């Protein structure tokens, strides 16, 4: 079962956590792997905390429950960080990715990370404002995830995602380009500690 990569997305309603999880699953599936992508449906509304999940694997996936032992935790909104509980269950060699302008080393303590766990930050909100025109941080966070996760070769996944955005936003050139620019900038700007 070690071949399964589990991802848990934390965000607020409207930030695109579910869309990101579904898009990631579609892209990784397109590359020939087995995937799951699903949100935790609560009484969702704009601004309320939401979670979404991915399982990505070389083998068929049978588990049908929330991700409680993630390899990767993605935090779309830094105000959700109230302490280590947001990374609960994170694998000993797991990765945390935070939408934040701060230096990643500053977050290690508040997240209570162990020696083998790594944290990365990227100012996804700023990138989103500058590329998409609105603070919807899911696509830059996706870019950062592609860069640091090692799920698959970055170039391959980036190319598939480009095609998928083309299909999804057919005829809306500026939307596709804005999103791709957001992904590419985050790939460049993500910092680790």
């Amino acid at each position, binding site marked *: 079962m070690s071949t399964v990569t589990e991802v848990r997305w934390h965000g607020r309603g409207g930030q695109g956590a579910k869309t990101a999880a579904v898009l990631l699953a579609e892209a990784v599936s397109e590359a020939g792997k087995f995937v799951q*992508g*699903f949100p935790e449906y609560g009484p969702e509304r704009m601004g309320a905390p939401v979670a979404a999940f991915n399982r990505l694997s070389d083998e068929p996936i*049978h588990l049908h429950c929330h991700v409680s032992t993630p390899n990767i935790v993605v935090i779309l909104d830094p105000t959700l960080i109230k302490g280590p509980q947001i990374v609960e269950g994170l694998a000993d060699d797991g990765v945390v990715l935070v939408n934040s302008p701060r230096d990643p080393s500053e977050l290690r303590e508040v997240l209570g990370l162990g020696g083998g766990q790594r944290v990365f930050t990227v100012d996804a909100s700023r990138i989103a404002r500058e590329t998409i025109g609105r603070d919807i941080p899911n696509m830059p966070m996706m870019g950062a995830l592609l860069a640091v996760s090692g799920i698959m070769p970055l170039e391959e996944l980036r190319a598939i995602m480009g095609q998928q955005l083309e299909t999804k936003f057919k005829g809306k050139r500026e939307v596709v380009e804005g999103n791709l620019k957001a992904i590419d900038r985050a790939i460049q700007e993500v910092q680790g500690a």
Partner: protein
Amino acid sequence: MTQVQAGVSQGRRVALTGNEAVALAMKQVEPDVVAAYPITPQTDIVQYFSSFVADGQVRTEFMTVESEHSALSACVGASAAGARCMTATSANGLALMWEVLYIAAGLRLPIVMAVVNRALSGPINIHCDHSDSMGARDSGWIQLYSEDAQEAYDNLLQAVRIAEHPEVLLPVMVCLDGFIISHSLENLEVLPDEQVRAFVGTYRPDVWLLDAARPVTMGPLDLQDFYFEHKRQEAEAMARAVPVIEEVAAEFGRATGRRYGFFEAYRMDDAEVAVLALNSTAGTARYVVDRLRRRGVRAGLLKLRVFRPFPQRALADALEGLAALAVMDRAEGLSTAGGPVFVEVRSALYDRARRPLTMNHIYGLGGRDVGPDQIEKVFDDLLQAVECGEVRRPVSHLGVRE
């Protein structure tokens, strides 16, 4: 998980949600009539299908009605008139269909309905449990349960053939777990349109209301003189569905490489303890069985696919050799004697000289998440019962705050 035989299928591997998979299967079947009313978490199915209609991808007569009672009533009318009909619903929508469920079955109308399992109110809840379809277990509908999107898709295609078989002529529910499957994107293999069309064929009813050459009456008053005989015939049709379900599964298996039966016995050959589950929890239980096997526990899983007709004898054959069995019910029957699956499975074992200790775990009500650790706890309960030689708590609630 279905057994996949390499090299047979001409399918295409895709990633879809359970609801998308169901809507695609409906599109490929292209029924004559779909009448439906949206309800969470079934809504996507109706929404996608209405897009297929609007975009001219199907020629189905799509009836938007004002309630689920009307949706199924419209299907009853259209099916009686000789049309191939489908609908879909969840929870309170199914409850509102109640009286019409019995009418559809009693008139022997082969309607196919996707039931996206959701808890019945109240308190109001939109998430998964099986209180909706389990309540309809005695309505005369055949019930197929689906572990994942693949099985929901495959079951829906097989449901058409089972329902319309001249020896059966009963409506079929295809159940899948709300949100857990309906809204989760996962991989499945879908068939080419022409393969689906060839598999389901054209519906040619023997008796239909609009057949002016052979006029018939359907649904007239049927009192002390004949009602009983008609119910007896309905029960016989349900019994005749048993070989038909097997034949249709065998043909589907030859065409796709995916094998289905009344249930799947996973690592049961030498199992000492096992859980019995249906729908998505069976997948999580399979993961736990593998984990326990690596630790030397002789664990097994029995995944029930067909609850109506209930495979009493075959189940008893598969279960009698166990030392202990836990039946997982995602519905609280409120009988104080255990959930609906438990009482029937335990009854199936009654006549056996050799039978396992049995216990019932009611779980996951209202969408409460059930992970591998909780299912491992069920196996702990089983192993403890084997050790003591008795079951101290025959019925318990798993994962509930005490």
